[in-house]
């Protein structure tokens, strides 16, 4: 996963404030948090920054697909084992006699489901990482052997 430093290194690092942030570092943090996008850094639009801009866009591509919680599922890495389906505390609470017991989910209130051999996330607002006073939960990341789920 891309880090703030990697993004920062590609910025003009002039702290020009044209983006509305006070420093380039703050802008990098905002981009990673999907609060700002690359185009808001106007100096980057100049020709001599073309390469950096392209690199930034490619680094931020997976982040762009993140759900509101910052969750990204990489279907190409997913084995469909369902560990996350059963380990997710929200799934256990919302479907104790289905997903919570290791069986197929029995209702639509769960976050994770496996479709066509790959995991699909829905009901994302139920995620413990979502909204105010969130919890930094790792229950779906830790049981995944292939790194198919990450949060940004």
């Amino acid at each position, binding site marked *: 996963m891309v880090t703030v430093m990697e993004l920062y290194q590609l910025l003009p690092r002039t702290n020009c404030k044209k983006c509305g942030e006070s420093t380039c570092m703050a802008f990098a943090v905002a981009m990673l948090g999907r609060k700002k996008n690359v185009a808001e850094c106007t100096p980057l639009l100049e020709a001599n920054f073309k390469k950096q801009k392209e690199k930034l866009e490619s680094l931020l591509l997976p982040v762009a697909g993140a759900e509101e919680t910052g969750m990204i599922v990489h279907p190409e890495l997913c*084995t469909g*084992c369902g*560990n996350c389906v059963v380990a997710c505390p929200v799934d256990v609470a919302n479907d104790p006699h289905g997903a919570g017991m290791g069986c197929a*989910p029995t209702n639509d209130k769960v976050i994770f489901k*496996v*479709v*066509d051999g790959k995991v699909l996330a829905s009901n994302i607002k139920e995620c413990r990482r979502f909204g105010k006073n969130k919890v930094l939960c790792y229950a779906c990341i830790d*049981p995944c052997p292939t790194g198919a789920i990450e949060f940004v």
Partner: protein
Amino acid sequence: MVTCTGCALLCDDIEVIVENNRIKEIKNACRRGAARMKGCSNRLVPCVDQKPTDIESSIQKAAQIIRNSKAPMLFGLDNSTCEAQVKGIHFAKKINGILDDTSSFCQGILIERVLAQKFRTCSLDDIRNKADVLVYWGSDAQDSQPRHLSRFSYFPRGELRQRGYEEDRMAIAIDVRESNTAKICKGHFYRIPPKGDREFILALIDALYGKVPAYDTKKMLELAGILKKAEFGAIFVGIGLTYSIKDDFDVLTALAQKLPNFNIMPMVGHYNMRGFNETMFKETGFVNKVKFNGKAVHDIKYSIMESLNEKTADAIVVVGSDPVSSLPGPVLSRLASIPVICIDPCVTMTSKIATVTIPCAVSGLESAGTAVRMDGKVIGLSKIIESEYLTDEEIMERLVEAV
């Protein structure tokens, strides 16, 4: 709900959406299972001498080859229903043939001991409800039985394990390779050198007796401590362990005796390999490697490997298996030098060298029946889509009639 035949977990909680007699969407099956249920891209067609013909001519030619053979062999049936396996055994009896399956070079040696009650064993449901210490030994369940950890062993909440994997269960991996399963076992991965399982077991037994183990003393004592405290443990024996101790399997029996709270569970790949072993055990008293001659004679020379090495068989009927793909290269020339009759839904490497090919329906997709899960539980398979193919069960019946 339908059953997945991707591996011997036989997940029976699969939902499918069928449209125009094709599977459009599969829910709950893993990547491997989903691929299996979507089927292969190249279906087999009936051929004689690699020339397309009709199924009737294929069956007649197969019967002729078997009639002319002095020592015919039937091999496979691990990807067939129990009903087809029973018919297959009858067919082998009728032709006084040799009968073997993949288990003779896979988990057969272990399943034989489980069926003969040399080990304590239990069901996967017991494991879900009770197990607190899980040992994946030479087994990468995550890749071979992908829903094992999530459906039964590690992640689910069970009757006595309400706190699930977070607090109530501990997963341990013992392996040569840091597999995907070993990754999940994190702090409890014991890496051993190739063929090091026997020494590891002996050292572990020492540690369990309170002796100082000769091997990796600190970690071994730690492991022995964990195993001793287990209330309901399971050792999932993968093919890595089976291959490694195949010459001295009794060391595992000795370890199991020293661990009274543990159960031994064979990790099976092919969806109905255990079914084959059980059906054979019921019918003949042996799990594989049999020649029928009025009665069933069990001998290593009737294993697929030795049948080829010692030229015991002079014609072979392969059902739902691809020995050209799964056997060592050096024995393939012998296989290709005898007439091969290949019964399979798909084009395989074996069908490419076969004298006769007979396409069949995909069991559990185009035909129903039953199969035996890796823990011995019988699971129903459903017919999900219509097809015009004969089932392997029907083909076995037809061959019995035709010979």
